[in-house]
């Protein structure tokens, strides 16, 4: 992303879970709506696919396309603490 430091938001968090489960939490509508305040995403989850984010009343809150998607087999993620930054990447351009 370009445009100087103000255009980039980086947040790191550590979650006691597996990377596989975290990946599902970021993608599966039944999963996302439980923690993302009712939000679901409509997407085929492959590069170039359109992406839409829906709020509970059905309106589209944001839209874009999948820029990068890379599922990594994660048995190599060390330790009990997985960081999403280290173990998987998903990028959406809105």
């Amino acid at each position, binding site marked *: 992303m370009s445009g100087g430091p103000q255009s980039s938001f980086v947040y790191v*968090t*550590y*979650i*006691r879970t597996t990377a596989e489960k975290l990946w599902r939490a970021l993608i599966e509508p039944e999963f996302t709506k439980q923690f993302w305040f009712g939000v679901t995403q409509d997407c085929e989850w492959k590069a170039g696919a359109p992406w839409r984010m829906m709020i509970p009343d059905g309106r589209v809150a944001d839209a874009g396309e999948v820029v990068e998607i890379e599922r990594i087999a994660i048995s190599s993620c*060390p*330790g*009990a*603490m997985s960081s999403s930054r*280290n173990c998987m990447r998903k990028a959406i351009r809105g």
Partner: protein
Amino acid sequence: VIYIASTPETVFAALTNPQMTEQYWFGFRIAADGKAGSSFTMRPPGGENVEKGVILESDPPRRLAYTWYPKYEDDKHERPSRVAFDLVPLKGQVRLTIVHEDFDEGSKMFEGISKGWPAVLSSLKSFLETGRALESSLNSEPVTAGAQS
């Protein structure tokens, strides 16, 4: 910024009480329960208590600010930085905002705390919400949690 399903009183205690910090701050005992003007101390696991800074503001359970002395070989020439915690209760949760500022240009301490705070705060959240802190990622990342200064 992190949201924790807890009360401001509990979060404030968790940030200032050495018995509590030891449980989630990867074994570090932080004592920051004094009034403004008193010092706050940190004891690493198996180490000695060191004076880590001076409490600038203490307004339980809303706000805490302290200076943060550089104590490690690679950063001890740097000037002290400043940490401020703001706790806002919202719908049975606490929004905890941390601002750590006033670093030297190219500060090593800044690099350390940039890795440390996310790990400490994630562990704090897990600890208060589930009763179980996170494990240190010491073996999987070059710098751990609050360890770097």
